[in-house]
Structures are given as C-alpha cells and as structure tokens.
C-alpha cells in the first residue's frame, strides 16, 4: 500500500502513538493512526482545527492522499507547512519562551471553547514561523472530559513555568537547563534553585514550590493501591489556566538583564567605517542572491536587517543570551518577521539530545544557510577561544556554501582588548594567514577593505569537497 519513494520517519516523532511525522521524497507529512480516529474526527467536526489555523495558533496544513501513509493503519495523512528552520526551547531567549508559553495557553483556551483540550504542552510543540510562535503538533488535541483535571499541567510547568521563573528570578542563562533536561526542568530542582522570596509569589508558590512538594508526597502513589481519581469542574479548569496565564505574564526579566548587551552600540570604528561596512555587506549579499542567511555572532542584528532587506530569511545567532533577548524585543517592536534570533555558541553549538541523540538534532545538523555572515566574529573564535583559523574555516564551510566574513587584524582595538590580558600565541593571525587558512575550504570571490579602518571583508564560495 505504501507508494514509492520510501518514507522516512522523523526520529523525534515517537512518543505519541496517535500519529507521527515522516518525510517522503523530501516532503513532510503527518500520519494519523487508527487508534486516534475518533479524536481526529472530533478535532475536525468541532471546528477547532480550522479555528486554530484561522487565529494563527496552529501550523497550516493540507490534506494528503491516504496512500502516502508511511505505515499501515492510517486514517488520515496531512501535509503541514514546513518550517524553514527548526529551533529548540533552549535556544530561545526569555521572551521567546514566554511567547511560546502564552501561545500554548491561547491554544488551550480556544480548544476549551470547542469542547476540546490539549493532550500535552511540550515546548517542542512550538516553533517560530514568520517571526511568530505557532503550534506544530496537529495531533495535540482531544475531546475534553467534563470533570477531568488538565493532564498537561505538569508538563506545562516543567517546560515553561520552571525555566521562565528561573530566568526571571535567578539568571537568564538558566534557560539552558532545558538543554540538559529534554523533558523539562524538574520542579524540585527549580524549587531548590529559585530564590526563597519566590515562595511568597502566589503563582510560583503554587505552580513550582507546592507543586514540587506534592510530587514528592505522592511519588509512591499507585504502588500499593490505585491512586484516587481526581476530578475538577470545567470552571475550575478555566480558573487554573487563567492563573497559569497570569503567572507567566507576570514573569519579567530584571532590567539589568539586558543592559550588558551594548557591544554593537559601542562602535570601535568611525561612522565612515560603519557606512562602508554596511555598503560592502549589502553588495555582497545581493551578489550571492539566495534564500537563507545565517548571521553568526549577530549581536542585536544590525546586519541581519541588511540581509532581510536584501531578501533573505535570516537566522541570527549569538552566544550572549542578553543580546538575543534584546534582538528579539527590537524585532517585535519593529514588527519584523524575517529574522529569527537564536541563542547559540559556535564554539560549543547545541548538541543533539534525547533518545539515541537523535530526538533533537544538533545545530550543525540543522545548518541550512545559503550564505553565512560572520562579521567581527573570527577573532573571538581564533583568539578568544584559541580555535586555529583553518578549523574556523572548516566550521563555516559546514554551515553553508557562501561566506561573507570579516577579518579584524591585531592592531584593531577589539583584538587588542582580547590580547590585553594574555600572551599572544597567535603568530599566524594575520591577513595573509587568514587568506591561506580559508583558501583550503573556500575560493575567495571578492575582497574589500573597510574604509577608514584596518578591517577587510571577504566574499567566499565553498570549494567542492
């Protein structure tokens, strides 16, 4: 019954027996299992499927032929709109994770209006499409039983409430705990790490501290006797969800959190140099003329905007969470949709995590840039992190086939600052050394000095392996 070519199941799509994601001939499909037929029918007939999509809460999809199914026993096959770049919650800034949490609650609220409910509340069910968070798991909804508690409550607290509370009340970097805990931050850990004062905040006292305590107290339940059934009226369920929403909305980063990301603002070069650099980058991006750009070391995105204006979809990576947060907030303010800011460190890119290290892919496996923009970055890797230039070139070659890269020489104030407190063990760090190192992986297509500065910007094309 299966048509050719072969279907390839997504490694991350195995937990839920209601269906799964697969690729056939490069096209993404979702198969709905026979066992989920009634819920799927209710999802359609209640009007929720259409309502979620009309409000941009759920990824658009098209019905597909049933014989495209990857395995026997499908009741439906759909073709969801593909997301050009899959990002993960530990790569999001505070506000991005907060938006994903509020989106999840908005989807739940709309589901409730249609007599349905969410079955799970994983942060991995949210992606960013055209700059906005959107649910991607079309099978996350089922009919709501009138007196049942909200099943995803625990998952919602572990995936959203705990990490957001830790970022807001302890440190913005704690979002990275999600990289270690693929199933969400354990609530006992969050309760331990949060400042004591948060015990007096009603939302966090309830959803983190007391929640963690209740988990501990009931840990052995069901071992000797069946756990007592918990019932809850629909009104109470609404009240709980309303309280969760208020709790999330009330979480804010302390003002100091985003203050130290002012690197881009303290320009070490003149206005002439800035204008010259902008023009060179713009011309080079136009010359490459492709679809997807990765701005690595993007800071708050000066060159991401130039790339977006040149027609690119941009992924803007930075290793400073405060810069990513600031970038995201600036894009929101400007209504910009073409740029996706992301927390990532090229010297330690997001690893593959989860089952068999295949459930969530590494950053390098997800690399899909047509052009990589690496401005004022190479010296941070080569001198700040001791990475030999040849290895930097190798990494850039893995990210994409075209490269726009800036060389900042040792005389530049920014490099002098990096070398100020350490021994200069980098005799090969020179314009000539840079050209040689990058020439093994790339062909230099264009080379332009930045006016009124000692910097040089190169446009390169990856050599065939």
């Amino acid at each position, binding site marked *: 019954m299966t048509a050719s070519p072969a279907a390839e199941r997504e490694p991350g799509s195995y*937990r*839920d*027996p*209601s269906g799964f994601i697969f690729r056939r001939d490069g096209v993404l499909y979702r198969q709905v299992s026979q*066992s*989920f037929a009634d*819920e799927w029918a209710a999802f359609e007939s209640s009007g929720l499927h259409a309502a979620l999509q009309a409000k941009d809460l759920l990824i658009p999809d098209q019905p597909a032929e049933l014989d495209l199914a990857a395995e026997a026993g499908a009741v439906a096959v759909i073709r969801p709109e593909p997301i050009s770049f899959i990002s993960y919650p530990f790569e999001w800034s505070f506000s991005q994770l907060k938006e994903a949490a509020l989106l999840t609650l908005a989807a739940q609220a709309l589901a409730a209006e249609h007599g349905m409910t969410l*079955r*799970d509340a994983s942060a991995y069910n949210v992606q960013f499409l055209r700059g906005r968070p959107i649910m991607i798991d079309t099978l996350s909804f*089922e*009919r709501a*039983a009138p007196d*049942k*508690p*909200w*099943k*995803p*409550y*625990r*998952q919602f*607290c572990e995936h959203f409430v705990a990490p957001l509370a830790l970022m807001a009340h302890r440190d913005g970097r704690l979002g990275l705990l999600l990289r270690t805990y693929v199933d969400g931050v354990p609530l006992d850990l969050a309760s331990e790490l949060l400042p004591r004062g948060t015990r007096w905040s009603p939302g966090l006292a*309830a*959803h983190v501290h*007391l*929640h963690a*305590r*209740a*988990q*501990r*107290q*009931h*840990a052995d*339940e*069901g071992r000797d006797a069946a*756990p007592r059934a*918990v*019932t*809850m009226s629909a*009104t*109470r*369920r*609404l*009240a*709980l969800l*309303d*309280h969760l929403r208020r709790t999330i909305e009330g979480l804010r980063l302390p003002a100091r959190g985003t203050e130290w990301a002012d690197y881009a603002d303290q320009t070490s070069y003149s206005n002439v140099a800035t204008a010259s650099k902008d023009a060179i980058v713009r011309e080079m991006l136009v010359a490459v003329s492709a679809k997807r750009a990765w701005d690595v070391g993007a800071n708050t995105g000066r060159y991401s905007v130039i790339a977006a204006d040149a027609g690119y979809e941009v992924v803007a990576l930075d290793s400073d969470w405060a810069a990513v947060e600031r970038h995201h907030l600036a894009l929101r303010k400007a209504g910009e949709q073409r740029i996706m800011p992301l927390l990532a460190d090229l010297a330690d890119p997001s690893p593959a995590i989860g089952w068999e290290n295949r459930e969530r892919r590494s950053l390098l496996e997800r690399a899909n840039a047509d052009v990589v923009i690496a401005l004022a970055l190479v010296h941070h890797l080569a001198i700040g992190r001791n990475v030999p230039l040849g290895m930097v070139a190798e990494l850039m070659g893995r990210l994409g086939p075209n490269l726009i890269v800036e060389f900042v020489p040792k005389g530049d104030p920014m490099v002098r600052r990096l070398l100020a407190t350490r021994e200069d063990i980098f005799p090969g760090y020179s314009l000539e050394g840079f050209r040689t190192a990058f020439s093994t992986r790339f062909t230099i297509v264009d080379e332009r000095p930045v006016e009124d500065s000692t910097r040089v910007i190169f446009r390169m094309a990856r050599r065939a392996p």
Partner: protein
Amino acid sequence: MHLVFGYIDPGAGSLVIQAIIAGIVSIPFFFRNAIRSTVGRFRRKPSGGAASQSVSSEDTGASPTKPE
C-alpha cells in the same frame, strides 16, 4: 476511555495539587469575571443605541465613554 490517549504521565502529585490550586484560584476568578461583566454592562450604557461603538469590557483605554 479518554485516558487511552493520555500518552504523557500527568503525575499523581501534579493532579492532586492542580485540583487544590484550581479550587483556590477559582474564587478570585469567579469574582473577577462577575465584576468584569457588571462593569461591562454599565460601560455599554452611555453609548446608547450605537451598538457598533460598544466597548469591550476589558478596554480601559481612552474610550469615548470613559468619564474623566
């Protein structure tokens, strides 16, 4: 029958605590909704017959009906 598709473990402690929290927060939730609907009824009145101008009950901004 609904639990057949609950593929995630809701957790015994999480179920118990959410029922307790829901019970507590449903009290302010109820009063907030009651106040909101009462205020909403009052605020709609001044606009009289112009139903199309009716203001959302949540709108506390500079609406023409707001007495300064």
